[in-house]
């Protein structure tokens, strides 16, 4: 994928290559975040506990990364921009899988989500897929602070540079449906993200989340095919 805006070289993390939606970014400096509106009170508290933000799905602006801060409740999300020099490191969902970060998680016995990751891993490995935990689980594993609750869905990201066979998608949906918690899988194609369950169902047009917003497409790997004017 060709990259965004007119940024210059240096250590900058670039969307689509170095930083993608769902990635977590560790901040070098907490005060480097710039919001479009003043930050609510909870933001600094959350960043003091864990200086981690998640990359949002929108285009970079002049090299600044679009990020979001996770707050204490569902409605507490703060959208902000991060200058590239304030990035200390990046943690991708698949990095958490690579080191099986959930195996030694302290809350493994308290919540079924951690065991579900073991099962997800054997499934994904059986199909040779690249994947990792995102959402509250990704944040908990990366930050080593509690974030998943008993009612949380388990959000997973599945990387699919090439077309995922529909039968594979269906098999995954069936297998995940048998797990004791709800598993929400986003398939990331080079063009954007689609819900695994929607892709597996095989409707004529499905929703693709792109850096330019959501679109209805026939084929999430070839979004230009079969595109109609929506308005």
């Amino acid at each position, binding site marked *: 994928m060709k990259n965004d805006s007119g940024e210059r070289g240096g250590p900058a993390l670039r969307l689509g290559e170095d930083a993608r939606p769902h990635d977590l970014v560790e901040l070098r400096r907490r005060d480097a975040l710039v919001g479009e509106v003043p930050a609510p009170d909870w933001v600094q508290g959350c960043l003091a506990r864990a200086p981690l933000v998640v990359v949002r799905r929108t285009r970079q602006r002049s090299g600044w990364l679009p990020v979001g801060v996770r707050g204490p409740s*569902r409605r507490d999300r703060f959208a902000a921009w991060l200058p590239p020099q304030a990035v200390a490191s990046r943690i991708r969902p698949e990095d958490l899988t690579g080191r099986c970060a959930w195996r030694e998680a302290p809350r493994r016995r308290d919540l079924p989500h951690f065991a579900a990751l073991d099962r997800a891993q054997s499934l994904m490995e059986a199909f040779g897929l690249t994947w990792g935990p995102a959402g509250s689980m990704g944040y908990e594993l990366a930050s080593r602070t509690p974030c998943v609750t008993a009612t949380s869905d388990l959000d997973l990201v599945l990387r699919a540079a090439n077309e995922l066979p529909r039968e594979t998608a269906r098999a995954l949906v069936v297998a995940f449906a048998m797990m004791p918690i709800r598993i929400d899988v986003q398939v990331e194609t080079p063009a954007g993200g689609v819900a695994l369950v929607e892709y597996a169902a095989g409707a004529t047009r499905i929703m693709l989340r792109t850096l330019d917003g959501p679109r209805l497409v026939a084929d999430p790997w070839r979004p230009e095919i079969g595109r109609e004017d929506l308005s």
Partner: protein
Amino acid sequence: MEMIKLDYPAEETVPRRVHVGVVGSGDLEVLLEPSNDGQAHVSIRTSVDGYGAIWKNVLDRFFSRYKGAAAIEINDFGATPGIVALRLQQAVEESQS
């Protein structure tokens, strides 16, 4: 959790019942079917409280163009207004296809 109900005038009949969208973070389900009184009724159940004004704005815009006498049930899991508008449009397209 919050419930929001909105009503709109309608002019056209809705051909059939459709279901679009998914249960999942940042997404929503839309069930669209013919209403039984010639008007449009929207019933929204959302996991994120406090966005009533934004919902009304999105639905007002949708019904400024769509005139179907539809009963619409929305089950929302924190979708953005852009995704809500797209799913509504998808439901209308499918109900007319």
